[in-house]
Each structure stands twice: as C-alpha cells, then as structure tokens.
C-alpha cells in the first residue's frame, strides 16, 4: 500500500489556502444531517467537538472522566506558542515553522508544520475572545515569554496554568453547544473498539464505567482525540487514566501506527522517590528561563548545595551550549542530565537528580517577580518534596512526558481507515522526533478549532444521505469480541495485581527503550515484554465483575494493550537505525554526543500495519521531502 499524504501542490505558504478552496463543502442545511463521534475532550477533542457543533454538525462527545473539563491537557503549565511577533523580536510564521521542523530533528512533514504555524495566530485571537485570562503587560496588551528551542519570545501564558485555562475555554464552548442541543456528552465512558462498516469507520463500542454496560454508538465519522501513550512507562507525567487503548484498537482494525518509538522525556520533573510512586510531576519548562541547571564538579559530592562554592559547580548547559544555555530543547537537556548522573555527579538521596537554581534570578529580580512568574510551580514543588525552592535549589530529573508518535494521518488528519480522523497528541503529525515546549497546546487547538472542521467536510460531502445504524452486523460482532476479551480478563484468576505487571513493564521500557537505546537492549526488552505478556494472561488478578464500577478491570484492559503496544515501540526503535530527536540509539551519535541522523536511509515516517498478535507488523514508509528547509545537524551552541 502506498501512503498518500495528500499534501496539496503549490508553494509552501499557499498550500493551506489553496487546499481550503479545493476542499468540498457541506451546506449548512446538510451539516445537521451528519453525526460525528469525538472521543476524548482534551484540547484537541474539546475544541473539535465545540467547533463542529458550531458549524451545525451533531456531535457525540465521549470522555473517560466524570466531566469533559478534566482531560489531561489541563495539566499543561507553561504556555502556547504563536507567531504573533508582538515583542517585535524577529518572529514570523516562517520562523515558527522552521524552529518546529528543526526542533523535531527534520522528521515531520513540511506542509503540516507550516500550516500549524499559520493557524497559531488564530488560536490566540480565538482564545482571548473566549475570555482566557492570558498574562498582560501593564499597558493591557498580551505578554510573552521564552521557551526551549527558540530565540524569540512567542509563548503566551496564563500563569503556570495555561493548559487549564485553554481547556476550560474549549470546555465552556462545548457546554454552550450542549445547551444548543448540538453536543451530547457521554462522560465516564471508555472506548473499547472501533466499528468499521464496509471499510469505513462508522462507530465505536464503549463501556459505561458506572454500570459496566457495553454500548454501541454509530456516526458518519469518528474522530479520535485520545492523547498519547506515555503511560506505557508506568511512571510518566500523564494522568492515571491516559492510555493507548483507543488508538491501539484502531491500529488493530487497520489504522497505521506511525513512529511509535518517538517519545519525549521532559527534563524538568520532580525526581522519583519511592517504589510505591504512582506518577511523576512535571515542572514547567518555563522554569529554565530563570533557573540555572548545575551539578557539583566533583563526582560523589554530597555536601548540601549552599555549601558548594561557585567555582566547584558545573553549569553544564551554559558551558556546553553558550548561545541557548539553559534553554536547549528538551531532548538535549534530558540526555545531558542523564549523562551527568551517569558520571556520578547526580545529587539528592538517589543520585538521580540535578539542581535547578533560582538564587541568581531572585537576587536579580527580587523574590516578588519570581513568585509572580512561578509561584504556583514553587508551591507545588514544596508540597511534594517538603523543600522550599526559594531557599534551596530545586532537584529535577527527566521523566516521560509526551509521545510524538501516533496514528498515521494524511494532510486532512484522516488515518488509513476512511472516516477515522485522529487529532492532537493521538496522531503523529507535527512534531517529528521531538516536540518543542508550548507546541502541544498549539497543535491540539490548531487541529480542533481550525483544521479538522474544514477537512472532515471534504470526507462527509461524499456520503450525504447514507444511513448508519447500530443494528448493522458489524456492531454486533465487535461488541461480542469486546465482551469476550473482558470475560477473559476476569477469568484469569492469577496471583499478581495488574499494577504490578504495569510497573514491571514500565521499568523494562524505561531501561531499554527510554532516553538512550541500544540494539542489544532493545532485543532483550522485546523478549522480556513477550514473556511478561504471556505471564499476564496466566497470572493476572482482576477482582470484581463487569456489571459494576470496576476500576481494576478498567486498568487490566489498558495494561493488556500496553503489553502488546510496547513491543511495537521496540520494533520501531530497532527498525530506525539512526538517532533523531527523542530516539537516541547509542551507536549513532556525533563527537559531542548529539543525535546523529541518517538522512539517506531514514528520512521517512515509519508507519506500521497490524498483522496479528505475535506477528511481525508490516512497515510502510512515507518519504519526507524537504523543499524549503535544508537538513542540518541540529546545533544549539
């Protein structure tokens, strides 16, 4: 099968305009005849549901939490990028496009990324009109700050809660459409499978998490906005219920999974402290604007930080990358932290941490200024660790945070299954091998507010008058398969809890398919994952039944999928014999230990097709063509 990305012709800057003209339209009178399922209510799903409803479509919106307002986009802290150039510091759409392509280590599609930069400004306009309380200058105009991977200030923010405010904006827009009768919200539902009718996505099977009932939902198109899969590592900064199930089941139904090995390790998280730990907490990268990263020069130096004199500290990011300093991209910052700890220079009880020090910033700007910028982050840090970051440097360590890989989509955000659209973190499209800070919010909202609402019409226009119903035999068959799988999980009756399996899987992935990878390690991990998966189906213990709120059963289904999906990540990592962005294979690095790409052989998207459990998936390559930027070795010196 040839992957057709359907990138429109013409010069880069005109592609989206031209495409919007060429897309088929659905007239307002006909929009109300279509129903669209949107799974997930984060920034992508929430904004898509609201906008589709504003246009006149009927929307069925599903979320796993008790309310659409709780999706994990809410935890994004730092900000959202846009090419407004309000600070007059040389920003432009082209620069945002270039920074994003370069930050992604040249593994994203030019046309998609350019479009993202183009619509970024519309997002700021729309969100401001919605009443998002963005930070302001004293003159009343919008304020900006800097973020990793850029030398201009283009990040808009609402204190350290930008994701929360943007999500509540999308949620409010949804609530308005609920009142207008255009959105029906189905909370506490988990999508357990995708239903295809004659090869087209026409519905989903969900589990009502309160009653345990399996439900059939039919529609004219299905949109997945179900986020990323970082919880395959067990410990990550994702919410507890974030999972791969929706996208993985779609993959098993024929949607290709692209670049699953591209995962992002965020450099500024609170270090791990115990085996009972359930999740990791991220501290916004914006902290690196004012905080200075350092370790003691001498390995094994256990003195408290304030007793280590200035000349015995190594501000290694400032030393190695004089022009970007503490603001190098996330993958570079993370790998450097690991390298320092590997040399025995790590700090804290575990030796797996580096300092992020605000003493100089407080001396320069005063405590009040720092408090206004980062007060909530400092308070959060103190709550978790019991230490006061105004007095003593923070301790930070990298943690899994975001996944660039996801279901393959074309320029219209449609997967390889007709009628199945994938938006936000759930798709693979815009961040290449590494995402820059403050770009996730931008992409989620770009997809939901300004891209999908156009492109989905082009698909629907061809199917006016076709009826879909849950009585179709496909719904019955898929529901039966889901029921059998649930019964199987409940019948294992083993001795190990599901969390115990998940924790072990996470350790395997972190050790061998995490920040730094080797071919031997990946091969070993693949064997270990297979063994663990086999043991899961013999020895997992899932209490309760399926006719009730059963959180253990929910987790069991998700972990069962992670156990299969983990292998796909490893297969992808093994196939990509180069290093790029978040995928770092130790055999491929420059003299300065930076990721060494192989553009001749790997300048492509790796899209995997499912062939059965324990079968090799089939690799399809979408070549990446760069007509507007020159591929260079990334350098942040």
């Amino acid at each position, binding site marked *: 099968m040839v992957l057709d990305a359907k990138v429109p012709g013409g010069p880069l800057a005109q592609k989206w305009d031209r495409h919007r003209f060429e897309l088929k339209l659905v007239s307002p009178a006909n929009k109300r005849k279509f129903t669209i399922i949107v799974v997930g209510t984060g920034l992508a799903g929430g904004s898509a549901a609201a906008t589709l409803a504003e246009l006149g479509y009927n929307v069925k919106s599903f979320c796993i939490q008790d309310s659409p307002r709780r999706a994990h986009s809410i935890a994004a802290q730092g900000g959202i990028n846009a090419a407004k150039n309000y600070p007059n510091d040389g920003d432009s759409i082209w620069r945002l496009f270039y920074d994003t392509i370069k930050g992604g280590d040249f593994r994203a599609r030019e046309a998609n990324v350019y479009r993202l930069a183009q619509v970024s400004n519309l997002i700021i*306009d729309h969100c401001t*009109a919605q009443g998002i309380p963005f930070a302001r200058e004293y003159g*009343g105009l919008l304020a900006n700050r800097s973020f990793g991977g850029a030398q201009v200030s283009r990040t808009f923010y609402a204190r350290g809660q930008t994701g929360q405010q943007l999500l509540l904006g999308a949620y409010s827009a949804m*609530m308005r459409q609920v009142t207008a009768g255009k959105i029906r919200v189905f909370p506490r539902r988990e999508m357990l499978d995708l239903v295809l009718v004659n090869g087209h996505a026409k519905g989903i099977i969900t589990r009502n998490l309160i009653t345990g009932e399996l439900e059939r939902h039919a529609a004219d198109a299905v949109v997945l906005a179900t986020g990323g899969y970082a919880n395959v590592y067990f410990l990550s900064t994702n919410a507890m219920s974030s999972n791969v199930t929706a996208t993985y089941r779609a993959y098993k139904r024929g949607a290709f999974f692209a670049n699953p090995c591209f995962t992002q390790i965020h450099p500024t998280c609170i270090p791990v402290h115990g085996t009972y730990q359930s999740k990791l907490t991220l501290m916004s990268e914006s902290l690196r604007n004012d905080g200075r990263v350092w370790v003691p020069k001498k390995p094994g130096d256990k003195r408290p930080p304030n007793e280590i004199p200035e000349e015995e500290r190594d501000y290694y990011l400032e030393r190695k990358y004089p022009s970007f300093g503490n603001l190098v991209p996330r993958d570079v910052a993370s790998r450097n932290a690991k390298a320092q700890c590997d040399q025995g220079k790590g700090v804290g009880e575990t030796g797996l941490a580096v300092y992020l020090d605000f003493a100089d910033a407080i001396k320069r700007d005063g405590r009040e200024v720092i408090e206004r910028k980062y007060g909530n982050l400092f308070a959060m840090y103190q*709550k978790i660790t019991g230490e006061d970051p105004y007095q003593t440097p923070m301790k930070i360590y990298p943690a899994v945070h975001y996944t660039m890989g996801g279901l393959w989509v074309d320029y219209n955000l449609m997967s390889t299954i007709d009628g199945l659209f994938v938006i936000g973190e759930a798709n693979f499209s815009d961040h290449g091998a590494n995402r820059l800070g403050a770009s996730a919010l931008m992409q989620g909202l770009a997809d939901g507010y300004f891209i999908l609402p156009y492109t989905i019409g082009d698909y629907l226009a061809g199917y006016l008058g076709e009826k879909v119903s849950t009585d179709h035999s496909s719904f019955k068959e898929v529901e039966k398969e889901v029921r059998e799988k649930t019964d199987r999980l409940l019948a294992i009756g083993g001795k190990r809890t599901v969390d115990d399996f998940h924790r072990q899987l996470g350790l395997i992935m972190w050790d061998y398919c995490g920040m730094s990878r080797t071919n031997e390690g990946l091969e070993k991990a693949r064997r270990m994952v297979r063994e663990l998966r086999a043991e899961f189906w013999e020895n997992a213990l899932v209490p309760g039944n399926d006719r009730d709120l059963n959180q253990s059963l929910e987790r069991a289904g998700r972990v069962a999928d992670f156990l299969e999906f983990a292998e796909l990540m490893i297969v992808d990592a093994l196939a990509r014999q180069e290093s790029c962005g978040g995928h770092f294979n130790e055999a491929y690095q420059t003299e300065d230990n930076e990721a060494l790409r192989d553009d001749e052989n790997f300048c492509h998207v790796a899209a995997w097709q499912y062939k059965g459990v324990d079968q090799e998936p089939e690799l399809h390559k979408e070549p990446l063509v760069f007509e507007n930027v020159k591929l260079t070795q990334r350098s942040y010196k």
Partner: protein
Amino acid sequence: MTKTINLTLKVWRQKSPKDKGHFETYHARNISTDMSFLEMLDVINEQLTLDGREPIAFDHDCREGICGMCGAVVNGRPHGPEKETTLCQLHMRHFKDGDVLAIEPWRARAFKVVKDLVMDRTPLDEIMQAGGYISVNAGSAPDANTIPVPAETAELAMDAAQCIGCGACVAACPNASAMLFVGAKVSHLALLPQGRPEAARRAIRMIREMDNLGFGNCSNETECEAECPKGISITNIARLNREFFKASFFASEK
C-alpha cells in the same frame, strides 16, 4: 529522610447509589511519609486485591492538583487538613503515627454517591451549561490585542478562573451551596471586557440553574473559602451578588 507511620482508616463503603453504605476499618502499615494520600490508598487497594476483597473505588486522574477529579472528606475536612491542597497533593508527612482517619465522599444533596468515594458531580457541568461561557464561534475573533485588558484586571480574572471544579466548596458548606463555584466563573468572565455583553444573563441563568439542581444558598459561613484547594476568595461571591442584583434590576432578561 524517609520515615514510615501506621494509621487506622475508617473508609466509607457503598456498593451503589441505592445502597445504605457503612464505614469499614483498615490498617495502613509502614506508610512512607513521602507518599501522597492517594498513593497510600493505592497501597491499601493492592493489599485488598491480593486478599481477595474488593478494592476501594475512588476518583483521581492527574494527581498533580489540577484536574479536580479527586476528593474525599478526611476527618471532616474536604481534601484533608492542609490548606490549599487537593487530596492527591496531600502528603502523608502531615499525619502522625497512630492517627485514625475517617474517609468519606462529599456529602451534598446535589451530588449522589456512585460507589464508595466516587460521586456524581455532573450538576456542576449543568450549571456551566446555563451560561458559563462567552458566546464566540471559532474563526470570528478580532486580533487578540484589539482589546487591552489592564494587567491587574487580568490577574483578578485569573484568580477566579483557577477553580478546578472539584466541588469541595459544596462539601464544606453547611447549606451545600455552589456559590463559590458559580461566583468564580461569573467573576472570571464579568471582569473581562469580552465577558460583559452576556454578564447579566450569565449571572441570572447560572444562579437559577444552581437553585433548580438542589444546591443551597450562601449564608456567609465562609467554609468554602477555607477549604478551596485553589484558595478562591469569597469576594467572588460578593461580585456574583452584585452582578446578579444589577441584572435583576436593570437587565431586560429576567
């Protein structure tokens, strides 16, 4: 340094909304003081599962204090004893060895208990549906810098907008009122110029919906402010009252 403590837990167990419910006692042993409250519950649940008993159902998601999904009343206080702290951010270092903790769901007429500590808070969504938004369709906004907003006003709006919708204010209020929740949303939007055109109708509709859903009224107990994990001030209730009275007297909408 890490230390461990032993606790006695009295946890509310209720099979379904119709079930009467009761407290059950559990012993939490060797709990690290670096654990969060929910991690402590995870440990109890792992043990219950291995013992062949049903684990305690409780809501949680982000575990960093922002999603608003978690929450339980601990010894009579929503989200436990620490100020401006959600249950997931409450750490065991705030408890002493030998403490006895009663853990139960929010108690309010408008919130039904679904199971154990899990509650149904959809009435808060219904209040939002009544007017907790600015009516603007994607694509129709002017340039963001067209309307300047004084920095101080934006900060006040942000103070109110921080609400995480957890419902602790309702649980804390003797009248089970949602006035702090409504006040926060009405204030956030009424303070900003973008929110003015709909301010009157928003205040009237949200208050009316709150009443319809069985929430009580405000009698200035200020318990909500004391328990709010985001420190939302009751001045937002005063602002809500002002918006509501202004609207009742002068607005065309009743």
